[in-house]
């Protein structure tokens, strides 16, 4: 297959902001998979101004130079608006013969991609896809090609509203909300803030490049990722039994992964290639779903593979949350139905892998067989194995062991790790006696123990203790504000689990100490240092994001100030001890504005 990099501007562009010119609607997917998109003409919008521009990300994409000041100027603002402040000329415009000044019409067309979405009646992806987004194009920098798309660029024929009501909508039609083709500024700010916190902490995600502000709280939100293909992009042709379309989609995806250097060892043999693909995807999804569980990230996964990218990156922060405690009974209320819960994400992820098995079988044999016959496929067993391994690994990392200590414990003392995890999970999953309650956007049955607190405090205390904490002391540390007196009653099983927790924890410390010939107290000091970062008291939650977004939106400030406050806020959101040295210590001031946001994070630290 030929290269996907054909539209990259390779010659040296003398214009300071010339790299933006690549984002002109051209994208190789158009050429390689014509079935995968609907094409729209677009026009330049007159109104609109830059609300936010992610300078750090723009540098990563090579859109601006590394030494570009993180401040807006007239020239870059003009360029951002020229590039992203567009609206499509859609079916409604054409049917109603709406004329636009020719000089406002962009030279190239833009694509809205097709993918499967379960909320569409056909359930086959024939009508679904980017309902309010188009792809601006791709940019390549330092050997990585990024896709850029914009949300809020007008109503496409692929929205659920068009499919259900069998009509085309005018962009901005107030009679229909999700289907009018618009996006809101708060969505952009929320996605930007949340995704940058995730990115900082090693969670794969789309990122927000820019927010173009319009009247009435509307906005165009521009996002970037090295490959914006979702599982649902494959599942549409799969459901339609369209081999040609699926094969082209597959080849396109693999070529991009290879060219980006992510899958440089992809085999030449076609059949081996499918096996490679399945192993990679199973690994990605098992790792991702274990990470989501352990970081308490709620991301509504379902069989259509719409809310996630192929590399497990979060896309679309509409229903994404991060919990402060393991609120594993929370369900998002999507009017027609409740979402999956955080623990059910694994089941859905596994089913996605099963669908990929069916898909590669279809690609091999050109005949689609029922999905059920693949339920015992070896890749699904591999998925389970990786998931369990990652769960153990994530917990050891959360305790505060370093990479070599984690490897040692996983390779030589797995049984102790497992026993510890069992006691840890026991406390993590205990729920309030109050039962299920309605919350702002769904239902929840609150967890009552904050495991971050015990992981942070325990190694500190054990530097000085010769014996274990008493059960009362242990409960005193882990209890959250959700716990009532009745929740905290100590029965014999709970006491036993407190003992197991401490016994296995200290056994692991001793194993590590023996291996590196240091004292247990010494290891506890190292663990304390790392754990105080990983399990810091404050942790952003979905509730906190909602309030912080309102706070940011209430600021009457320009893009430089908005960027600065978000940038400074992020300094305090790092949970990765290895990144401490990279943080701009002494440069970040805990200003009143930032402090206000941090206070919100603190207030909602145990929430959903």
């Amino acid at each position, binding site marked *: 297959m030929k290269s996907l990099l054909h539209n990259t501007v390779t010659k040296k562009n003398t214009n300071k902001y010339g790299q933006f010119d690549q984002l002109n609607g051209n994208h190789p997917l158009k050429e390689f998979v014509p079935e995968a998109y609907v094409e729209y003409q677009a026009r330049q919008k007159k109104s609109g101004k830059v609300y936010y521009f992610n300078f750090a990300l723009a540098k990563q994409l090579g859109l601006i130079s590394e030494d570009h000041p993180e401040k807006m100027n007239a020239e870059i603002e003009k360029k951002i608006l020229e590039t992203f402040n567009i609206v499509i000329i859609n079916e409604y415009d054409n049917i109603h013969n709406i004329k636009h000044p020719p000089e406002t019409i962009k030279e190239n067309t833009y694509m809205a991609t097709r993918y499967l979405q379960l909320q569409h009646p056909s359930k086959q992806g024939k009508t679904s896809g980017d309902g309010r987004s188009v792809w601006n194009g791709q940019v390549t920098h330092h050997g990585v090609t990024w896709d850029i798309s914009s949300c809020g660029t007008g109503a496409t024929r692929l929205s659920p509203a068009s499919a259900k009501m069998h009509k085309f909508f005018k962009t901005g039609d107030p009679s229909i909300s999700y289907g009018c083709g618009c996006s809101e500024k708060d969505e952009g700010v929320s996605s930007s803030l949340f995704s940058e916190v995730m990115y900082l902490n090693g969670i794969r995600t789309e990122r927000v490049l820019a927010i173009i502000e319009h009247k009435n709280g509307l906005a165009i939100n521009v996002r970037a990722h090295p490959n914006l293909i979702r599982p649902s992009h494959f599942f549409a042709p799969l459901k339609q039994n369209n081999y040609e379309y699926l094969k082209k989609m597959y080849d396109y995806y693999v070529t991009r992964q290879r060219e980006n250097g992510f899958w440089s060892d992809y085999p030449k043999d076609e059949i081996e290639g499918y096996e490679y693909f399945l192993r990679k995807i199973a690994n990605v999804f098992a790792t991702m779903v274990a990470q989501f569980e352990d970081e308490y990230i709620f991301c509504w996964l379902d069989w259509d593979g719409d809310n996630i990218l192929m590399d497990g990156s979060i896309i679309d922060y509409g229903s994404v949350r991060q919990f402060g405690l393991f609120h594993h009974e929370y369900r998002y209320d999507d009017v027609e139905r409740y979402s999956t819960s955080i623990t059910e994400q694994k089941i859905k992820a596994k089913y996605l892998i099963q669908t990929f098995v069916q898909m590669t079988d279809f690609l091999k044999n050109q005949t689609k067989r029922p999905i059920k016959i693949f339920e015992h496929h070896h890749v699904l067993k591999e998925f389970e194995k990786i998931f369990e391994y990652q769960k153990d690994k994530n917990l050891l990392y959360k305790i505060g062991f370093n990479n070599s200590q984690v490897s040692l414990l996983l390779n030589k003392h797995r049984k102790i790790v497992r026993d510890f995890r069992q006691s840890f999970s026991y406390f993590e999953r205990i729920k309030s006696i109050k039962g299920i309650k309605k919350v702002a956007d769904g239902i929840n049955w609150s967890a009552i123990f904050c495991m971050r607190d015990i992981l942070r405090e325990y190694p500190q205390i054990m530097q000085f203790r010769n014996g274990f*904490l008493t059960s009362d002391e242990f409960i*005193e540390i882990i209890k959250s504000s959700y716990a009532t007196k009745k929740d905290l009653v100590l029965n014999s099983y709970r006491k036993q689990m407190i003992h197991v927790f401490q016994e296995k924890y200290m056994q692991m410390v001793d194993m590590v100490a023996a291996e590196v010939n240091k004292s247990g107290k010494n290891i506890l000091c190292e663990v*304390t240092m790392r754990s105080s970062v990983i399990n810091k008291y404050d942790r952003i939650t979905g509730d906190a994001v909602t309030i912080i977004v309102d706070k940011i939106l209430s600021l009457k400030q320009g893009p430089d100030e908005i960027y600065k406050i978000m940038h400074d806020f992020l300094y305090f959101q790092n949970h990765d001890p290895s990144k401490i040295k990279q943080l701009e210590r002494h440069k970040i001031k805990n200003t009143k504005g930032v402090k206000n946001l941090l206070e919100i994070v603190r207030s909602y630290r145990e929430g959903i």
Partner: protein
Amino acid sequence: MRLVFYGGGDEEENISLNHALIKLVKSSNPVITYIPACSYDADIEFSYFARHFKKFHISRMINFPVDIPFTDILLKEVLKSDIIYLGGGNTFYFLKTLKDVGLIPKLKKYALEGGILSGLSAGAIIMTPNVKTASFPSFDCDLNEEKVTNFRSMNLVDFEFFPHYKNSIRYEDELKRYSNKINRPLYACPDGCGIILDQDKISFIGKNYCFYKGKKILLKAA
């Protein structure tokens, strides 16, 4: 009493003072507790702090933010530490927090009973009779967002302390003016400089100054 006052600066700038601090310790396996002025970036500051003191072969350390809930279990260990180090930050916020959680008398008792108490910038000011020096000069002062009106602090020494001192006319004028209003010495220490009080003996590290009754005196370093 054994007290160490740091004028400010980072770990590398304070290496001589840190040496002097460690020299005060009698135990062979000492414990240091770090009390940050504010918990928001306490993990970052503790990371630097702990990494630095590991170089002195200290292998037991506690990070003890006081503006978030803490248990008596950890507090008991804190008050048994060989050294308690009060971090830098906003002096008013730090003082208010320490008062709110009832730690001022406990830390005072700790110091009077032989514990080594040290403080950097805001942490050092808090060991003196009051925190008025945090409120001037106008071009380099802490914002009193907490609206603290009672400036009285630990009162462990009979001098006042001005951190981050820069040897310039505008600082000098401000400090001379203030020293005329008080009846005790005002020690001004630049970043990387500071004071060691070991029982009755006071010594200085770096180029420190004393302002007294409108006069400025350069202090001889140890």
